[in-house]
């Protein structure tokens, strides 16, 4: 399964790097422009469950990596074939100073809150997302708070130490 999928992906798309991490794990790196198309191809070829959309800030490289983790649901409600056990990490790196990516809600509806969360916490803009409004936070931040250069402890000290005590 993993080797045939690797060949198919590399023949169908340009600049795709596939690495088999272990028997049931596979990583696919694609340029940001083709992430949408590869994801749709993978959904149609059996990876119908988007488990997670995650994001890693690689500060030194100046890049933000968005990771889509794909697994499969059962085909006929009772059996899980051995080849369905494959997990796939679809990764794409965007520039840290201007992170933009196409939204994948048209392919996976459950990506909606994940993209909202990544937009809020990492500052990645998802093009075509219907409501890119804050999900968790209520304050404004200069740096998106889950990026590596956002110092939580310094922020807490600066923000809350300046609030006077009640008895003052």
């Amino acid at each position, binding site marked *: 399964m993993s080797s045939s999928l690797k060949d198919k992906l590399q023949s169908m798309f340009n600049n795709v790097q596939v690495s088999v991490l272990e028997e049931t794990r596979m990583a696919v790196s694609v340029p940001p422009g083709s992430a949408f198309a590869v994801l749709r191809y993978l959904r149609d070829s059996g990876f119908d469950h988007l488990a*997670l959309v995650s994001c890693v800030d690689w500060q030194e490289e100046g890049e933000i990596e968005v990771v889509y983790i794909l697994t499969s649901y059962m085909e006929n409600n009772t059996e899980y074939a051995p080849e369905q056990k494959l997990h796939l990490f679809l990764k794409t790196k965007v520039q840290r100073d201007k992170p933009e990516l196409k939204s994948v809600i048209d392919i996976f509806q459950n990506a909606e809150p994940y993209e909202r969360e990544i937009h809020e916490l990492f500052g990645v803009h998802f093009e075509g997302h219907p409501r890119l409004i804050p999900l968790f936070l209520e304050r404004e931040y200069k740096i998106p708070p889950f990026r590596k250069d956002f110092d939580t402890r310094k922020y807490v000290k600066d923000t809350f130490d300046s609030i006077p005590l009640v008895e003052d």
Partner: protein
Amino acid sequence: MPQITEIAKTGSQRELEMYFGPQHLGMVGNFSITLKVEGDRILKATANPGYLHRGFEKLMEYRTWIQNFPIVCRINLVEPDHMEMIYAMGVEKLAGIEVPERADYVRSIYLELARVGSHLFGLWAYANMLGFDTVAQWAMYHRDLVLDLFEELTGGRVYHIYIWPGGVRRDFPKGFKDKIVKTLHSIGGCVPDYDDTFFNNRLFYDRAHGIGKLSQEQAKSLGAVGQVLRATGMKYDIRRVEPYAAYDKVPWDVPTREDGDAYSRIWVVRDEMIESVHMIFKLLDAMPEGSVYNRIPNPFKWKIPPGEAYVRCESSRGELGLYMVSNGEDKPYRVHFRTPSYSHGLTILEKVLESESVADVGNIMISLYVVAPEIDR
């Protein structure tokens, strides 16, 4: 509802926006939903999480691998045990640590006890919301009996921090097996009472049947897992599709239902609880002797080689995942939890609330088994 759609089309002034939660009595947990209603019919629902956002995933980047255990169990306070398990699994995968066979059994038994306790808590919330106060009190009492077991085993009632990378903290104390059996028998002996007063009760059927319905196709496209998916007929359970701990060592069944409504979901919960109890008995019988702990390197100097891992387990709410990245330091570089309530409480809840009645919001939300802290993290 022909009249309502007509009024909506003509732009009537009768549309109203109202807040449901976090202070509303029908709301369980710190969570709120903004409802756009017409009479008592919901036109649109918007979920508002964030009341419990504590930034745990960022906080964990500042702490060493072992120091994170007290944080992970606070992500889901109803069943912290699966959170410990998933984090330990992630660390073991990245660091390449093996677990002794007996520890696998101990972990499975411990996690199934947690599942029973968590389902009883869920039953308490659900029965309470429907007005079955007696059943709710029973469920809470029986959950307390499970917590007594945890207290004896780990010293803590709610947060246990029992599972560690490489195994569990300590073996079962003397006579603990008999205590588990005795407690589970006393809970199991009340199943007929639960059935008579609640599960086979016509009132429960009338309130829950056909409410919050989700077809299997919808469930799949919205990313459903756990009971929400199993109530539509799919035997999708991580314990079965990708076994971890000792779940592949004993035979057990995945209960399902077909209808995909609140009624089916609560029945799946009931059947799953009974299946868990049977599984614990089987695991106790099959448990081998031996060590329950493999030594790990000195936690104060422990550096884990660079890499990334996605691990998953079945919590009592569905697929619980963890994506973890290490860059070779003594702290995680990035931690991201995939919690089942995230899709259930945001995407699916907004979808199924449409065109339901305001009186059923709590009903649907609790039947989807949403725990707010799990969404916010």
